[in-house]
């Protein structure tokens, strides 16, 4: 395993199980993500999408199985994986530029440097200037250079998410994780942000793992679509990967693509596989009616 070997896969999950208090959330998930892919994971609420993301991030360890990045086990969150949350990604007490610079500062300045910087600022002037230029470059990329001096609470929701993306991208992560980043935005902003993220991806070839509960968004955004759903047919609870589809259209895609027949065909297929919210109701009813299904869950939990 030398450095000169170009590894094909950035991220690998092998037979991952996850359970809380005996309740199984994820059931045998295996997933490999190549470099430069834009993977979107979609599934109904509570099916464990965010759990997968947290395991990839390292803030949670799987109860069984392996989560690995570049051939090494993931233990805790580090700077090789960037993250954009739905909310609270930004630090309120810093302005936009400082938010973006912050990662570089943490990387290059230790605690001692941070205190010395306030006492003898001229020693650090050159480095700080470089950081500033880099941050401005990223802010220009996300189109928010004129808001660099503003505080996060002065920005709109979409702008805040764009700053969060710049903040994560400046660390040059191997993979960028997005946990329903557009979940709290209104429809218009949401569409603009979808196009923006697609454009960013096609410019930078950044590997992205995009999580959403909106099927249309998931199909529209990713080059590869993974569908998670609660799985009950063999009597075991927990979510499984139901579909793994390659989405053929080149990026960036026009929004009109959502109204084509191929698009609706893919959507129909996935709905059939078990994503439909009305279908979720069926699953719950099934669990209540068939007690043996619930019993088997307990057994697996033990």
């Amino acid at each position, binding site marked *: 395993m030398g450095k000169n070997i170009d590894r094909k896969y950035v991220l690998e999950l092998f037979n991952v199980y996850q359970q809380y208090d005996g309740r199984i959330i994820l059931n045998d998930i295996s997933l490999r993500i190549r470099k430069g892919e834009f993977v979107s994971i979609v599934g109904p609420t509570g099916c464990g999408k965010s759990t997968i993301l947290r395991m990839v991030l390292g803030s949670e360890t799987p109860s069984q199985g392996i989560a690995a990045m570049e051939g090494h086990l993931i233990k805790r969150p580090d700077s090789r994986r960037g993250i954009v949350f739905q909310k609270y990604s930004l*630090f309120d007490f810093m302005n936009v530029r400082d938010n973006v610079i*912050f990662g570089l500062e*943490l990387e290059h300045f230790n605690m001692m440097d941070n205190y010395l910087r306030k006492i003898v600022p001229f020693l650090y002037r050159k480095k700080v200037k470089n950081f500033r230029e880099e941050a401005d470059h990223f802010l220009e990329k996300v189109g928010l250079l004129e808001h660099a001096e503003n505080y996060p609470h002065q920005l709109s929701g979409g702008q805040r998410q764009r700053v969060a993306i710049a903040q994560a991208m400046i*660390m040059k992560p191997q993979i960028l994780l997005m946990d329903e980043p557009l979940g709290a935005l209104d429809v218009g902003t949401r569409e603009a942000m979808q196009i923006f993220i697609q454009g960013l991806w096609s410019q930078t070839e950044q590997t992205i793992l995009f999580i959403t509960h909106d099927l249309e968004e998931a199909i529209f955004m990713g080059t590869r679509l993974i569908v998670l759903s609660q799985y009950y047919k063999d009597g075991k609870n927990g979510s499984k990967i139901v579909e793994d589809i390659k989405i053929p259209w080149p990026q960036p895609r026009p929004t009109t693509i959502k109204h084509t027949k191929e698009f609706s065909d893919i959507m129909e297929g996935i709905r059939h596989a078990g994503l439909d919210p009305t279908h979720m109701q069926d699953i719950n009813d099934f669990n209540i009616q068939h007690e043996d299904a619930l019993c088997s869950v307990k057994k697996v939990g033990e």
Partner: protein
Amino acid sequence: MQTKQNMFSLRFKQKLIDGGLWLARLPGKTLEAFKRIPRLIVKELFGIGKEFLEMIKNFYRLRTIPGKRISFLLSLILFLVCIKLYYNTSVERHTENPQDKLVPTGEQLWNGFRKTIFEVKIREEYDTNGEVIKNELPKSFREARKHDKQAFADRKFVNKKEMWKNGAARNYLKQGESLLWQDTKASGKRILIAMVFIFFGIYIGLVMGAFPYAEKVLYRFVLFFDKIPALAVLPILFIIFGLGETSKIALIVIGVAPTVILDTYLKVKEVHDEQLVKGMTMGASQPEIVFRIIFPQIIPKVLDTVRLNFKAVILFLIAGEALAAEAGIGYRIFVVRRYMDMATIFPYVVWISMLAFIVDMAFRSWISRQYKWLNK
């Protein structure tokens, strides 16, 4: 085309002309303003009348907006009632007994104010035999200065430096402090030292909130410590630490620090987990997360708590000083209580309230200026 210099001189001339015109118009303007005064008074009176009628109409109505003038007048009512009541009692008691001290008249109060605030208190000094040396001081700083200058002219001092060092003027400043100022200095010193320890409590709260193992060690203990009534342990403190400064400072710290620690702890717990994870993905180490991500978020809120607890600080200070002290605001109030010297107690109470109010206001404005991101 005009040159730059030319432009500048033109502008300067224009300004001069404007200024001259303004000066020329000034008397006329002042006259006009004076002429406007009666009309203004009439307008204000009409406004008050209008708002008064509105008040009568809407007094028992929800969701009305009172006018500016009537609001101000209404806010004064209770103060005026208090003053009137006080005045009536005072007059009544003084007709019975002209030497009454409990409810001093305005003249007595004014004398009290002058005695505590403006009058110089001579600090008694003892010589080696234990006898009191009486310091005879000049009545004012100016007089002392005059005296010094005369002495310098008589060549009693070698140079001006020595004159300042040994002269009457410095002596006046050093010894001739008013009673109130002496007490304020003594109390202020205690508060400042106690505040240092209370700020140390912020650090404990931060560690307790951030690190779960530290929480397990500290949390129960601090909760229990918080429930101990500080005034009940006051005798113990006096026995352990003696009657000196330590016991009073310890009382303030024991009374206030647990609140600050627990509040900091709660504020740390309120920080969203996303922020910590985000910090980790930016390569922050554990102490960096605590001191560069959590701390800046909570510190303005914690400072607000310290500000609100300033009242408790003063409460414990006065309680401590009342029992045993040599100087201090609480000490003075409880000493003159024996002589029922209301004319001294009143200015002290007003002074300490004013002081607390000013400190509170300054602190608040400093916080809002320092942490602009809070003003959402």
